[in-house]
């Protein structure tokens, strides 16, 4: 036995060594564990690999440091032409990009929120770690890169590794100070990609020649060389949309005959890599730097928006009232000072040759009279005011009070509006409440900032209608001015039941357009004997009666729609 061992000791040692290694290989290639328990290597293998890398990495780091030092001496002390100017340009570019980055990050967060709403998760790049490549596997069959960043730098397994040009691979093994990166050209790698134009999805793997290819693709004539390939994000490793490369050519898959493999020309120069970026954070977190950038970008955007609005407001011609520029400007300034967020009402510029269609030439709605003719008959246009529900006397006080209260609640800018809108609201509210009443015309107020007190005839030189209770249950409004010619009012639809030609009171417009005599508060104006109520005509879609086509020369301004603004 002893002679056998001594005679064949060399062969026995060889067999023993081979046997141990085969067993070791068999242990390593056993069925992989579930993903949550899976590790790239078992503990013992990882230790051996760590020893080997720890032995090999120092000389690699030294050689790399030596080369970098030589290049650094050249770059930092010799080749410094135009560095200052370039530095200034780059700093300016960096500031601009930081602002853009903040805005883009905000957009990305918004997109992420929307995707969460759609239950679709997509990863975004939030933090990268630059790393130097210090070595490779050194053999053709294994496309492995060694980088100088490890677990103590925040690198973890399956982190994507990219360059500005395109993806490189993913982290396969992590050691305290170094890591291994599996390139996309390795046959065991895998990345979800999509062809940019044809939108064909596939899995990217390396072939035996070290070229990345999209495997198992259905033959498609649309796939042409030069088509861009980007990551699809479906592998949950690479973020979506990163450049992968371009279609180089198409080969038939020898193992799956109908299918083809699309060979890719990598966008990143994988054979000349020196620096890469490890994407270390793709979650929802944002860095303080990004937060600061976002705040800065929002502040800049707000300032630009405010500046633009001020410039626009200054350029608007309606900002200055040609008749009373001081008061208008002052009011606008006041509005701006009270609340800069409230926009001034925009008004069109004055017309060079005003006509009745020009803006600001029509009288305010408060000065219009229902049924009054505003267009000459010769135009062939019959414009009459439609009856609106009048404000009953019993509720007028509250309504007017509400109107007054509402007027006080209006935004400052609304005080500059003609009061017709403000005073037409109670009537409109009553109409909305289903109160069918004859229309009470709005007050005739030459000045838009007049104060209206319900139940009072006129005040401050303004004339307005005043509702009075009628004896037949109908609300009757007494006009403050003497009655004028007969007015025809077209009502929407048939006349209300039980009401036959009610006789609402109007404040007919005088030929001069000014308000007639004022009434003292609480006094009943005298009705002229010649005054008659307007003739109510149902608006059934037919032409107005011929009596309406009589000319009315004293009224030239067109009627305003109900509640319309000048």
């Amino acid at each position: 036995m002893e002679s056998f061992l001594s005679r064949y000791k060399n062969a026995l040692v060889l067999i023993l060594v081979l046997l141990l290694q085969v067993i070791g290989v068999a242990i390593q290639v056993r069925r992989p564990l579930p993903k949550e328990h899976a590790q790239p290597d078992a503990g013992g293998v990882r230790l051996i690999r760590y020893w080997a890398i720890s032995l090999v990495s120092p000389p690699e780091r030294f050689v790399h440091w030596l080369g970098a030092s030589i290049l650094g001496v050249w770059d930092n002390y010799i080749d410094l032409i135009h560095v200052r100017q370039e530095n200034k340009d780059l700093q300016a570019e960096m500031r601009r990009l930081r602002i853009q980055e903040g805005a883009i990050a905000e957009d990305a967060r918004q997109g992420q929120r929307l995707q969460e709403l759609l239950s679709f998760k997509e990863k975004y790049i939030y933090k990268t770690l630059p790393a130097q490549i210090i070595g490779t596997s050194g053999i053709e069959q294994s496309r492995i890169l060694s980088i100088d960043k490890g677990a103590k730098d925040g690198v973890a397994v399956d982190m994507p590794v990219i360059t500005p040009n395109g993806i490189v691979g993913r982290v396969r093994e992590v050691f305290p100070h170094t890591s291994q990166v599996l390139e996309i050209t390795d046959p065991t790698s895998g990345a979800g990609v999509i062809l940019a134009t044809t939108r064909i999805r596939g899995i990217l793997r390396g072939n035996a020649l070290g070229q990345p290819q999209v495997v198992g693709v259905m033959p498609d004539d649309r796939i042409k060389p030069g088509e861009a390939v980007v990551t699809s994000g479906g592998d949950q490793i690479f973020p979506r949309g990163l450049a992968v490369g371009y279609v180089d050519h198409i080969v038939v898959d020898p193992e799956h005959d109908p299918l083809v493999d699309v060979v890719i020309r990598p966008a990143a120069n994988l054979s000349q890599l020196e620096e890469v970026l490890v994407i270390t954070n793709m979650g929802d977190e944002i860095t303080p730097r990004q937060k600061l950038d976002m705040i800065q970008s929002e502040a800049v955007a707000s300032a630009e928006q405010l500046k633009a609005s001020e410039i626009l407001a200054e350029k608007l011609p309606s900002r200055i009232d040609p008749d009373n520029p001081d008061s208008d400007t002052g009011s606008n300034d006041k509005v701006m000072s009270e609340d800069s967020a409230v926009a001034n009402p925009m008004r069109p510029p004055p017309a060079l040759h005003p006509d009745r269609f020009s803006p600001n030439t029509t009288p305010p709605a408060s000065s219009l009279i229902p049924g009054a003719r505003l267009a000459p008959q010769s135009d062939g246009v019959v414009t009459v005011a439609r009856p609106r529900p009048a404000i009953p006397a019993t509720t007028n006080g509250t309504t007017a009070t509400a109107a007054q209260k509402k007027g006080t609640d209006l935004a400052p800018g609304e005080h500059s509006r003609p009061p017709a809108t403000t005073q037409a609201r109670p009537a409109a509210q009553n109409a909305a409440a289903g109160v069918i009443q004859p229309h009470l015309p709005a007050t005739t107020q030459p000045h838009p900032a007049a104060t209206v007190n319900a139940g009072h005839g006129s005040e401050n030189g303004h004339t307005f209608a005043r509702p009075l209770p009628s004896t037949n249950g109908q609300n009757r409004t007494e006009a403050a001015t003497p009655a004028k010619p007969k007015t025809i009012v077209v009502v929407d639809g048939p006349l209300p039941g039980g009401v036959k030609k009610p006789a609402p009171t109007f404040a007919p417009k005088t030929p001069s357009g000014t308000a007639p005599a004022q009434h003292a508060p609480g006094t009943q104006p005298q009705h002229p004997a010649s005054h008659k109520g307007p003739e109510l005509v149902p608006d059934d879609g037919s032409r107005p009666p011929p009596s309406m086509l009589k000319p009315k020369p004293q009224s030239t301004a067109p009627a305003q729609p109900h509640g319309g603004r000048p």
Partner: protein
Amino acid sequence: MSRLTAATRRDIEVQSYPLILFVLVPLLALGLQSFVSLHFTHFDILDLPLLVTIYFAISRRNPMVGTVAGAVIGIAQDALTRQPLGIFGICKSIIGYLAASLGVRVDTENHGTRALLTFGFVFLHSGMYWLLVRRLLAQPYAWSWVHESIRSVVNTVVGVLLFALLDLAKQKEY
């Protein structure tokens, strides 16, 4: 043919090297293989750890030393790759054993002999590697006779030069 066999005492003498050389040379080979391939893509056609294994095996003329040296260097090379530890270890263990066994019988001081041995061992190494990867690991690995021939020739040329360089450090023992 007689020039290729170890017929004289000089031919079969055991050459020894400083111990530090047994550590530094394989490490340097692994480091160079890893680093130079980063900047010269086609440098990976070389297999410096294999050449170092062959050299120490045929120089020491001890199959056990050749086997263990091949296993250690191969496992270290495996550690730098993505494949399981032991693939290169198995290949280089066999190469080390064969190289040491042949080193006893042939004149390894001759450059022609070294070239022939290196060419054959590189080719054999590739064949064993292909066999292990394809059959044991069931992973894709394309075999190309042309490529492997070129690879063997390149490694042979570099190996002969490397062996001559390493001969400068050897210490003869009688």
